[in-house]
């Protein structure tokens, strides 16, 4: 058993003034054995045994609230919790079963679902437009679209990938995807503490990206953007990496004329953790929504920097059972109440994790039918094809 974190981490957390803002801000702080503040304290004192065995370790959903508010600027989300999880697993302590399965699957198949790599192309069949694979194109492209695992494999998210294909086509963007060669970028695996797995994914994806020529990378997955943009080595020297909200917001002048269909509904937007607190991207998604004819944008309580995580961030998608058993609540249930309070017809999101989580939350809180959940891509696509399903 480790008696202390390796030297670099200890130095990293020396600036902590034990103010407790992290613990007070953490959406699950009340359910933890030790809040982030206390964990930093214990880690600095070399009392890791208690920390590595606590349930706290596997309650963090990587929502970046603590990191965003820490007056000392400590990287709690990106460094502390992943390092502690890594230390725990290296010491032989077992992560929750769901996390184990996701990590095993990613290692073996390149995605947390344990699906075959060839199935990454399944969603393209229903797109209605050609979706070129860059290895078959054999030429440079303007945009290399990193689809990522949820949009490629999860049935609810495949519709969003299809919508994005249609939007890019309507805008005349020269794009291509990686197809079966693609492996998970690994942001969630990194946050889950599997540094070795993340390193192997970085090696693979970096070498894969180096084989092709492209103007920029666009992705619909905020987590992929997170790691590619900041954590992958050489990030600054390579072509830019952007989330679709940034890419499409830049093209509003070209987009507006093709958004023919009206969506006369009250729409509220949930700021996801990675685009929001981690990257400060709040205006672009709203600009996209306002561009849709007939749409009324309303803000829900706790918007922008203070948005409450849906519970899926980081390894959160694999911690549902753990969180339910320990905290007896779901963050998505809490957040859906905010959307309902805004009096919205539609809850708009821009992270693949969120659609299913919020749709489930509507059912489990008995609010099914009171509002619908749509990714911004789906709303833009509905307007594009003048096929609005929602009435005010």
């Amino acid at each position, binding site marked *: 058993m480790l008696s202390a974190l390796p030297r670099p981490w200890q130095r990293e957390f020396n600036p902590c003034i034990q103010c407790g803002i992290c613990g007070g801000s953490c959406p699950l702080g009340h359910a933890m054995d030790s809040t982030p503040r206390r964990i930093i304290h214990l880690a600095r004192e070399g009392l890791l045994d208690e920390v590595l065995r606590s349930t706290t370790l596997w309650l963090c959903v990587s929502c970046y609230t603590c990191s965003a508010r820490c007056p000392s600027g400590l990287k709690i989300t990106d460094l502390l919790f992943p390092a502690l999880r*890594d230390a725990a*697993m*290296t010491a*032989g302590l*077992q*992560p929750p*079963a769901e996390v*184990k399965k996701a*990590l*095993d699957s990613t*290692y*073996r*198949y390149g995605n947390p679902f*344990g*699906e*075959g790599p*060839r199935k990454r192309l399944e969603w393209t069949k229903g797109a209605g437009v050609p979706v070129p694979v860059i290895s078959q194109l054999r030429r440079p492209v303007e945009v290399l679209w990193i689809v990522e695992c949820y949009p490629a494999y999860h049935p609810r998210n495949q519709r969003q990938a299809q919508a994005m294909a249609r939007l890019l086509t309507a805008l005349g963007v020269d794009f291509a995807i990686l197809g079966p060669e693609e492996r998970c970028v690994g942001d969630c695996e990194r946050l889950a503490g*599997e*540094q*070795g*797995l993340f*390193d*192997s994914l970085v090696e693979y994806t970096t070498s894969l990206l180096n084989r092709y020529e492209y103007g920029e990378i666009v992705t619909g997955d905020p987590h992929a953007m997170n790691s590619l943009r900041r954590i992958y080595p050489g990030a600054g020297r390579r072509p830019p990496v952007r989330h679709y909200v940034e890419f499409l917001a830049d093209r509003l002048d070209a987009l507006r004329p093709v958004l023919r269909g009206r969506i006369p509904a009250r729409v509220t937007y949930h700021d996801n953790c990675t685009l929001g607190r981690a990257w400060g991207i709040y205006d672009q998604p709203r600009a996209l929504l306002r561009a849709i004819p007939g749409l009324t944008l309303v803000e829900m309580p706790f918007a922008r920097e203070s948005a409450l995580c849906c519970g899926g961030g980081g390894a959160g998608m694999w911690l549902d059972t753990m969180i339910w058993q320990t905290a007896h609540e779901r963050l998505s249930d809490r957040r859906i109440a905010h959307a309902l309070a805004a009096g919205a017809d539609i809850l708009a999101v821009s992270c693949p994790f969120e659609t299913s989580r919020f749709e489930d939350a509507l059912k489990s809180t008995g609010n099914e039918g009171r509002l619908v959940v749509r990714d911004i891509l789906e709303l833009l696509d509905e307007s594009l094809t003048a096929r609005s399903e929602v009435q005010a």
Partner: protein
Amino acid sequence: MKIAVLLTMVPDLVEELEIDASGTALDAQWLRYVISESDDHALEQALLLKDRHGASVTALALDYGDVEQTLFTALAKGADAAVKITPMPEGGPRRREAAAVFAEILRRQSADLVLTGVQAINDLDGHLPGLLGGLLDLPYVGVTRSVEVAAAGGVIVQKEYPGGVVAEISVPLPAVIGVISAPQPPRYVPVARIREVMKTRSISAEAAPELGAQPAPAIRRMFKPEPAGQATMLSGGTEQAAQELAAILDSRGLLR
């Protein structure tokens, strides 16, 4: 106690299985191999005995289907040694032949306890541990969910029966045990540890013995069953649908 854990690589069902041109075997082109699930449990069971009683654990596997990755993972999890038996035909030998090969290799070693999964998904001409018990003339019990060291010597295993019934059986050593599950799920080992082991440890090779033909039935045809397709919807109202369903369940032997 010296424990030998036998690991078998089986077709990974995540990929679509295709039959080759001969119509009697799987098409190797898209075939990927994965460790047999119950062998993973057998390894975990061995490691638990090592954790608790200081047993030494050697993982052995026939050399086909990217077995090195599996053996390195076994070392990373805590196995003391890993052995690949080589050469092997592509896709591995049939189970009966595999049993004969392992039996010969095990005769050269002096394992007190042989652990391996009680069944593998592509078993056709036999199940490995049972066959080994017969070939080596050793005590054998299979479908175990736990193996514990007995104070008086030997091991005590829990053999699973349907309906949650379990038989506690004492088995003298040396013995062969067919594991269906370990008392806890196979442990996770971080990728960093596997990569470290790949750099610092090595897998030893044992020459596969020359054996004569083994008794096994000839494969005439391998094929995929009729595709299920979309669900057959039972219509005509609740009463009729329920009646039809009851008939279907009965005809499938599901009413006992």
